[in-house]
């Protein structure tokens, strides 16, 4: 049967099933195929905090969404064009997001009375007409998988496990994905269990064949590759990009890297990645708690290593006292906060931007430090290199603010040329710097206000530092009121001075006469840009800017804000960045705050911006 092939410019797919169904793996594979095909793409994994909640329950549903296109895209997509639901729970949890008329592939084998009632379906939605608004494709995925594997030496349970590969095969057929990658992957992954490897392969091929032959699917789709700048690309998640960026930074600084960390979702993967990179002189220390993690990193920094700690919001709370010590010691240190839903344990596997003010102010006393927020998974690489550079140059702890969406989401990333990465080498102090031949640990560089980094083992530079207030220059304990006032202000001035190093803030305002500015920070970059594009697509005028330096803020930002009638700042919190902007520039920011544990939708922001632009117009 020859089938119709339809051209699309972009597609959003979502696959959903039990936590144990391998949905994340399936999504990763489809992403990989899509990347090797050359589409632009963006992904959004979404999973519960439990490892593997009981099969078939709403609590156990895990999903993976992928947006891919023949052009440059910036978000994982709002609402799927196709949903694969591996069981009734997955259907129930996701169906409300599917627009009318779109495709829903369901694994009918799981639609038993027991499973249906487990999630509160009184009748089978595949049989009543409750789902008539979408295009249902009933597929007995499990039994077809078992059937396809009947010649393998596998129990039924084991055979059933390959059903995700059957689904992947079907999807791969539907979107004409290249399959070589996946085939190679399966053989590699299960190299030690060849039966499993081949069973999965067979299931994958059976899925593809099923698409090709069944009448249930009359069309397949093609999404052409996106035009890209020449270069080498790979798909990367934010956490992976942070790990690579840290490795690159340490290598460019020619320093050993020491990571002191305590596992916590969604930051743990950075620890995992780095622990596998020992050959790059990276030591990872799984500490007894968050405090020990940052404390050990600080100790390593005192010894001349690049000290790093990684965590999420609750960990930042715990580390705050020690970060304050680092501020007082004026030693380089990198703290990575992968934000998640709060307060307290909150929504550990979901994303949020509500640690900005905590990282700004969550320490006793006046305790300023620079904060950098990457805007996309790939940007995590550049941001962390910049953060390390700042820490080393200014001898200060720096916080990098990522979030759950950046951490686990992925996008194509152009592999940089190592030789073009910044040179981060530092000079340790080697000589006494005092007029009288003594060593003055708090004598500052006149430009940066940084103090010398004098590491143990350097003869003649023996000195003591501590968290008690100290005299500028000598570093001796000082309770002198005026010295304290000066030191408080010097520490602030040092951090404020970093703004001098920034490039001018880029403003994207094609017509040059927009009255509304959409301003964002961190991971809202994609959704905001997508929203802005929609407005422009409909003829609206809107400017767009994005801040990566959360502290100190760029020096040109105030002027920029004042240029617009309306500045709208969407945030996944209750307006934390807006608060900083309002306080600093006395500009009336229009906040848009949703705290749902999920990134904003492009449509949502497009509509928001459109209405603001319209209002601004009508104000004329």
């Amino acid at each position, binding site marked *: 049967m020859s089938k119709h092939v339809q051209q699309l410019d972009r597609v959003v797919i979502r696959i959903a099933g039990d936590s144990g169904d391998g949905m994340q793996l399936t999504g990763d594979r489809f992403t990989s195929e899509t990347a090797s095909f050359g589409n632009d793409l963006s992904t959004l994994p979404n999973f519960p905090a439990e490892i593997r909640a009981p099969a078939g329950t709403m609590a156990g549903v895990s999903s993976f969404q992928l947006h891919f296109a023949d052009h440059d895209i910036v978000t994982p997509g709002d609402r799927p064009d196709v949903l694969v639901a591996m069981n009734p729970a997955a259907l129930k949890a996701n169906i409300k997001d599917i627009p009318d008329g779109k495709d829903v592939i369901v694994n009918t084998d799981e639609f038993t009375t027991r499973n249906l009632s487990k999630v509160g379906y009184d009748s089978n939605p595949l049989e009543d007409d409750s789902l008539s608004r979408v295009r249902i494709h009933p597929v007995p995925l499990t039994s077809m998988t078992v059937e396809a594997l009947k010649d393998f030496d596998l129990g039924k349970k084991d055979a059933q496990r390959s059903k995700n590969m059957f689904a992947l095969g079907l999807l791969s057929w539907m979107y004409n994905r290249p399959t070589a990658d996946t085939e190679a992957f399966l053989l590699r992954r299960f190299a030690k269990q060849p039966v499993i490897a081949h069973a999965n392969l067979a299931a994958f091929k059976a899925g593809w064949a099923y698409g090709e032959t069944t009448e249930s699917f009359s069309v397949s789709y093609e999404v052409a590759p996106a035009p890209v700048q020449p270069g080498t690309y790979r798909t990367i998640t934010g956490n992976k990009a942070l790990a690579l960026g840290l*490795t690159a930074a340490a290598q460019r600084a020619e320093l050993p890297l020491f990571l002191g960390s305590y596992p916590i979702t969604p930051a743990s993967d950075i620890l995992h990645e780095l622990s596998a990179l020992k050959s790059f002189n990276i*030591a990872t220390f799984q500490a007894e708690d968050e405090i020990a993690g940052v*404390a050990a990193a600080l*100790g390593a920094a005192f*010894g001349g290593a690049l000290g790093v700690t990684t965590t999420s919001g609750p960990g930042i709370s715990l580390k705050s006292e020690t970060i304050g010590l680092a501020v007082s010691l004026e030693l380089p240190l990198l703290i990575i906060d992968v934000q998640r839903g709060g307060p307290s344990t909150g929504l550990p596997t979901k994303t949020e931007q509500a640690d900005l003010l905590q990282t700004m102010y969550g320490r006793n006393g006046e305790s300023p430090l620079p904060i950098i927020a990457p805007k996309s998974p790939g940007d995590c690489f550049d941001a962390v290199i910049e953060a390390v550079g700042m820490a080393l140059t200014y001898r200060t702890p720096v916080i990098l603010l990522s979030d759950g969406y950046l951490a686990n989401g992925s996008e194509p990333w152009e592999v940089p040329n190592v030789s073009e990465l910044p040179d981060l080498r530092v000079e340790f102090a080697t000589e006494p710097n005092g007029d009288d031949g003594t060593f003055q640990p708090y004598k500052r560089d006149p430009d940066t206000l940084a103090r010398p980094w004098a590491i143990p083992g350097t*003869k003649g530079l023996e000195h003591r*530092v*501590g968290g008690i207030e100290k005299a500028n220059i000598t570093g001796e304990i000082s309770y002198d009121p005026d010295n304290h006032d000066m030191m408080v202000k010097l520490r602030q001035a040092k951090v404020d001075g970093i703004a001098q190093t920034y490039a001018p803030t880029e403003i994207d305002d094609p017509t040059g006469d927009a009255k509304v500015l959409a301003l964002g920070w961190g991971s809202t970059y994609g959704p905001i840009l997508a929203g802005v594009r929609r407005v422009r697509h409909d003829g609206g005028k809107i400017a767009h800017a994005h801040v990566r330096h959360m502290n100190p803020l760029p020096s040109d930002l105030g002027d920029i804000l004042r240029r617009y009638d309306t500045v709208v700042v969407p945030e996944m919190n209750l307006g934390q960045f807006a608060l900083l902007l309002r306080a600093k520039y006395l500009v009336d920011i229009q906040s848009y705050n949703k705290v749902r544990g999920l990134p904003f939708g492009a449509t949502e922001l497009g509509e928001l911006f459109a209405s603001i632009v319209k209002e601004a117009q009508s104000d004329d």
Partner: protein
Amino acid sequence: MTEVMIGMPKVGGLDGVPTSSEKLTRKDFSSDAEVRWCPGCGDYAILAAFQGFLPELGIARENVVMISGIGCSSRFPYYVDTFGMHSIHGRAPAIATGLAATRPDLSVWVITGDGDALSIGGNHLIHALRRNVNLKILLFNNRIYGLTKGQYSPTSEVGKVTKSTPVGSLDTPFNPVSLALGAEASFVARTLDSDRKHLTSVLTAAAEHNGTALVEIYQNCNIFNDGAFEILKNPDTRDEAMIRLEHGEPLIFGVKRKRAVVQSGFGFEVVDVDDNLDPESIVRHDAHCEDPAYAFALSRLSGSDLAHTPMGIFRQVKRPTYDSSLQTQLHAAIDQGPNDLQELLRGK
């Protein structure tokens, strides 16, 4: 610094630490900072002993690092002219762990108090001990919070009347030696501020031990807990109270050495040395005993009243250290590769 990071496992605690080219003296280790303890504080004696003993190690002064927490005792690093950090309350062992793990060429000392180490810092202490990081932890135990002006501490005896316990404290104290042994410590010792010779010998053994060494130093706080260790200092009582531990020697003590320690069940008992006593039954101290049960039993001899207090090295055994193992893993990986950053970024 990277020269010495050769990833070779250490045998002694000072292996890999450069030796000093000059002969150093006590003065070399005295900083200019004004010492700010109360007159009469036991910390002075410990400082003097420490500054006197450090040159004996023969290591380069610049390769010694002192890391402390917060408390009167934690001011110690300011007075020793080496590298030093006066950190925050309870965190010194964790900070020192990061330093020792990355810098095998340093001799790293943690200075802490009974509050700093056992109250707020208890967790870091026990984890440092189980990991066996090459740190020397000097726990100045004055059984009180000095710096905050006299609240009871986790080593204060039950019923202690202090500012925060006007009708007496309720908590059973820790026995720091027992706690350390329960936490898999490889080296545990106890000594006394005023006994310079004993202090020096214990410090020397600690410095040379490869791994975490916990040295509990009984220290008099003459302002808030004066006389806490009087029984071990007063010539009238000390001989009956103090049991000196010397590896291989029988546990005999007392005025005219008339007391001895014998086994009783899984523990110890103090008996009179008289004709009825079979000399063979007197326990010979074995600091190297693999089974920590021996040292643990010994640690139970003394209660809060210090009536029979073993002083010296309870346990001193060899086992792999965290820092050496880490450096070994690291250098094996570096040798083996991959080391090409560009390839790594490319993901091939």
